[in-house]
């Protein structure tokens, strides 16, 4: 009997770990595109937040989950373009332009909530992605129930990680994008369109972060809540550095953070909620200060090529 309970708990924690991994994983993988193209990924938080909000709005407007998801991705890209234009065209420091995206999303989403829904702080509830739980999957012991409590976006995310890795390290485009990120002058000298690759990297970060944001709202609660991302975009920045700007590294890092996040549920009953909610931030601080030794960002990060 005891074993049964423990098993159920383990399964629930692991299932919860995966659910908390997905948004981080998508954002961090997006961030690796941006960083590999030599643009700092500090705007992930804002792109995610935009994705959360606009995916709900898309579904609210059209009634379709998938169109809502598309809204989330496109809004992530649009917000990322602010970062891209400021940093790549106007040569604004990437940290500043990234923060501008974050602050804009943080300011605009509550404003739009008020304007569109007349509600302050949260949106109306729409449909959300349901779990993927066919019978055959439930019958597989252990892994079955864990995977069964995931939705479609989870499987999309895993596929995207693999595709992203292949893209970055096996294709011509990926090699060239990495060259731009490592040494834009060298890339320019062999005739590559440096700005184009940078724009691409940033747009990919916007698309994936937007998708990650959509997972939080459309993939779970079916509604948007003010400041819904709660710093996950920043945590994704750290995960990305932790994972050496590699999608598989991002996977490992996200799972690590997702696990700590999932542990919260256990402590919730014992400790005051504020202290429990501090965990991911404390873990992030510890990782930044002690866990990033020996890592190296692409050498050309933040460098521009004169026109």
């Amino acid at each position, binding site marked *: 009997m005891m074993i049964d309970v423990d098993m159920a708990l383990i399964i629930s924690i692991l299932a919860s770990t995966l659910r908390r991994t997905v948004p981080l994983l998508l954002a961090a993988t997006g961030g690796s595109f941006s960083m590999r193209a030599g643009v700092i990924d500090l705007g992930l938080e804002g792109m995610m937040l935009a994705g959360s909000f606009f995916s709900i709005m898309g579904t609210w407007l059209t009634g379709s989950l998938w169109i809502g998801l598309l809204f989330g991705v496109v809004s992530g890209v649009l917000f990322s373009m602010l970062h891209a234009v400021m940093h790549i065209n106007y040569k604004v420091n990437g940290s500043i332009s990234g923060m501008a995206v974050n602050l804009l999303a943080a300011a605009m989403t509550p404003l739009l909530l008020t304007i569109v829904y007349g509600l302050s702080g949260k949106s109306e509830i729409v449909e959300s992605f349901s779990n993927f739980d066919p019978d055959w999957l439930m019958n597989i012991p252990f892994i079955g129930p864990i995977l069964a409590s995931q939705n479609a976006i989870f499987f999309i995310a895993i596929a995207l990680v693999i595709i992203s890795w292949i893209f970055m390290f096996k*294709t*011509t485009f990926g090699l060239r994008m990495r060259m731009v990120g490592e040494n834009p002058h060298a890339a320019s000298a062999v005739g590559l369109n440096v700005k184009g690759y940078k724009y691409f990297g940033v747009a990919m970060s916007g698309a994936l972060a937007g998708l990650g944001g959509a997972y939080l709202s459309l993939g779970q609660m079916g509604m948007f809540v003010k400041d819904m991302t709660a710093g996950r975009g920043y945590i994704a920045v750290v995960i990305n550095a932790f994972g050496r700007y590699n999608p598989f590294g991002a996977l490992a890092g996200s799972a690590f953070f997702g696990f700590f996040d999932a542990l919260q549920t256990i402590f919730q009953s014992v400790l005051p909620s504020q202290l429990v909610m501090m965990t991911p931030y404390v873990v992030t601080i510890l990782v930044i200060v002690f866990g990033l030794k020996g890592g190296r960002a692409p*050498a050309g990060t933040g460098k521009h090529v004169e026109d």
Partner: protein
Amino acid sequence: MEIVRMEKITKVYPGTVALKNVNFTLNEGEILSLLGENGAGKSTLMKILYGMTEPTSGDVYYRGEPIDFRRPVDAIEKGICMVHQHFMLVPAFTVTENIIAGSEPGKNGFVDMKEARKVVKDLISQFKFNIDPDTKVENLSVGEQQRVEILKVLYRKADIIILDEPTAVLTPQEVDDLFIILRRLRAEGKSIIIITHKLKETIALADRVMILRDGELIRDDVDPSEVSTNELSEMMVGREVDLQERHPAKNIGEVALRVSGLTVEEDGKKKVNNVSFEVKAGEILGIAGVEGNGQTQLIEALTGLRRVNSMELLLNGEKISGTSNKFLRAGIAHVPEDRTSMGLVKEMSIKYNLILGYHREDDCCDSRGILKRKDIEEKGNRLKTQFLIKAPSVDAKIEELSGGNQQKVVIARAFSHDPKAIIIAHPTRGVDVGAMEYIHQQMIELRDKGAAILLISADLDEVKTLSDRLLVMFEGEIVSETMPGKLSDIEMGLLMTGGRSMIEGEL
């Protein structure tokens, strides 16, 4: 057979005319040396040919047909490639990746690494380059990196290869190797242009010499076998210069700076290994060596910028240790190797740069730490006049000055604070002949006033001309002490690359 012709090229930048009506031709299978001082227009001319910039007026013909390159890719497509002075390589990539990136073999968007490695291997063996295609470029020596650059060009099937200051960072042996490679390329029918200001190399290598001065074409038909370096330098500068003239020290005094047992470890490697030497008052001690053999670490140790594993430094018998502030206070001045990044704050005014490092002295601030703005202004004006710094006022920002005048600000600051000893690194890197003469003259004056000068320079000619005594550094050790002029360049070159035993045998 003429391959490129440029007619009446004029290029105007805001404020300056970089090229005035310059005509240029290049023949198939020749090595053309494009000679000129900094700012003479040679780089601009090549940038036009390479499509990096467009001429204000004038025409470019390639094999007789007019062309209008907008981007370097256009030039690359026609087989015109450039080896830049600052290598365009990705240190984190392998040799193969560096060579193929931008024109990769493969299909459906995937890179065919197998094919790439094969092509690169073939190229390496065809030209006997002796490089492993799978090493990361960050692990290669400077000479090997240059060979990767040349491979990049060959991989792109270049017919015309432009090399910008290719020997600036090479050892004498590496220069010889490069020349062998270039001659081999010429034999294969390639046309080569080298942009340079080094006269000896021009004479040794080129088939034809073209000289630019102040944006104008002086000569384009000089036969290097018929001219001397002095004649070339006169054509280049427009007047007689003699940078080779020595001014031996007249009054060498007691030992001022004594360094013993200096060891610096970095990443577990001994970058400076048990180095000891002394510099006397009124003497210039030169340190020759190929860059990257511990000079940077040596300079940083002697100026307090780096923690050392062991060192005893005595200045006039007094032991000095601690931070760079302590070293400066004690009277060890420093002219850093890269003036804009290490010696100046370009956003700040001349007068505030002239006190940098000495801003805590009594003539700059009072005991409560308040700056004496009037005194700083006066001091600025005095030094501006004394060191001939060309600027509208001492309130002008450093970024508004030319490179030569920026260097004068650094020199003025270091030389005017009565240094007992001074560490000078690469004082004339990137400055033109005029500024070079001026700086050399100032150094000799300072020495004759009794300062102990340690000169570290990668320019062998500079070290030989200025030094009263010479040390050669290789892999963090002093491998030889000699007097300037005693050893030939070849012998010096051997010492600089670790050929100690051979030379010692001969001595």
